């Protein structure tokens, strides 16, 4: 299971600054179990955002948001509501956010931090997409993760090592992650996101929180030894 935790509302409102209309996306997979993106959570978020003066154009709770093909089909039914929105708020793990960003030409904001995958890697090559960093930055990078898409995991823009949009480290298999981010932000008219204050990561948050370590994996192992 992929464990996610909702970001504080203030952080989410920060992402939505300057925007009025938003479309919400939830997930019936892991995010339902974690109570970050099940239908009740999505409706709760809808209420909170409306209280803050935002208009929610619609919402969709997909069975498995990490399944990119499924996401595309499900969101198609909400095309008009999505078109009417300034952006989408995705209430799941980082893979779900990236899957939505990959199929929709709108800015996508993460509503949660992915803290630990607890074994599962998602349906869409999760291990290469989300590093469970516990401090999701996909809002700044148009839904392309700089930790996994950039060889160096750079947070503040491309290095000088890209050629024809490919990373010099493994050009045959790797695109330059920051080239992808740049292309998407350019298309969305949000290149301003590439010139903000320096982003520094809190690497403590990459460690699974103690509660999770000692409940999911650790506790299971303890169970086994007791049996």
């Amino acid at each position, binding site marked *: 299971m992929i464990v996610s935790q909702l970001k504080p509302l203030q952080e989410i409102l920060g992402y939505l600054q300057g925007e009025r209309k938003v479309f919400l996306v939830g997930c019936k997979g892991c995010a339902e179990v974690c109570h970050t993106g099940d239908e009740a959570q999505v409706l709760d978020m809808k209420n909170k955002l409306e209280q803050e003066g935002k208009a929610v154009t619609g919402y969709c709770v997909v069975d498995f948001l990490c399944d990119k093909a499924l996401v595309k089909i499900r969101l198609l039914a909400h095309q008009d509501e999505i078109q009417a929105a300034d952006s989408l708020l995705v209430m799941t793990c980082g893979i779900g956010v990236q899957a939505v960003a990959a199929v929709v030409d709108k800015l996508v904001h993460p509503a949660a931090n992915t803290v630990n995958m607890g074994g599962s890697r998602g349906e869409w090559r999760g291990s290469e997409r989300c590093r469970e960093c516990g401090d999701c930055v996909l809002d700044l990078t148009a839904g392309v993760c700089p930790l996994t898409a950039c060889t160096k995991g750079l947070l503040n823009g491309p290095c000088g*090592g890209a050629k*024809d949009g490919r990373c010099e480290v493994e050009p045959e298999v790797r695109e330059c992650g920051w080239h992808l981010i740049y292309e998407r932000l350019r298309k969305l008219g949000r290149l301003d996101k590439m*010139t903000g204050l320096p982003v520094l990561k809190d690497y403590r948050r990459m460690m699974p929180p103690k509660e999770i370590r000692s409940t999911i994996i650790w506790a299971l192992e303890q169970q086994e030894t007791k049996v």
Partner: protein
Amino acid sequence: MTLREKLSSGKFVVTAEVGPAKGVDTHEFLENVELLKNRVDAINCTDQQSAVMRLGSLAGCYLIKQKGGEPIFQMTCRDRNRIALQSDLLNAYVLGIENVLCLTGDFVTLGDHPDAKPVFDLDSVSLLYAARQLEQGKDLAGKELTGSPKFFLGACVTPGAEPLEPQLLKMERKVKAGAQFFQTQAVYEPKKFETFMKEAKKFGVPVLVGIVLLRSAAMARFMNKNVAGIHVPDELIAEMDKAENKLQKGIEIAARLIKEMKDMCQGVHIMAIGLESKVPAILDAAGL
């Protein structure tokens, strides 16, 4: 005069880089420093260039300083986390080193220890920011310093990148984070550099155009194939091919490029990569 003073006085500035040895024999390094110290305004010391383990940049800069040269301390984020990077910034300051070139660094697999753990806790932008914080008497954790350093902070940009816009966006971010001068990746196309400078001018920071000395046509072809952001045009490669004395031709081309781009920017940064002894000849030929 320091590099900062020279650039602010509007003088056209010349810098050149030297690379320390892989080992502790500093003989050649010191010879190069001796040769360059009165010929250029500042000397960059590379930081384990191309991710190859060697004598470090901080020790190299200290030696340059001891010899009476003005060092530029190149720092990459590949090998040290934020604790070590900030500490080395403080170390540099107490050793009398003011100029720091903040770089992200080549990836480890490109070097001679491909099995090393890549760090990249910070990057060029956040390293500039860290240096700025230290100047203001605080570290990245917000803790107070006893005595704060003062730096002249530099950064790198690739004028030949395609597309160019991401480089300019990052340049803007570097200026906002604290960059006070730029030394560029090697440029062989003055026209492209002119286009770049038209955009880069708006940041109001001095730019030193990068020149890498060509030693053969094969080297040019190798860079075109393998080094991102460097493009040697076919005419220059043909010129190198035809030349009898390749090195002489390389010096001539470098001098010509400097002359063509001199009026577009505030200085030149020469990377001779092992042929530091030829830098004076390039400068002579360029009339500098």
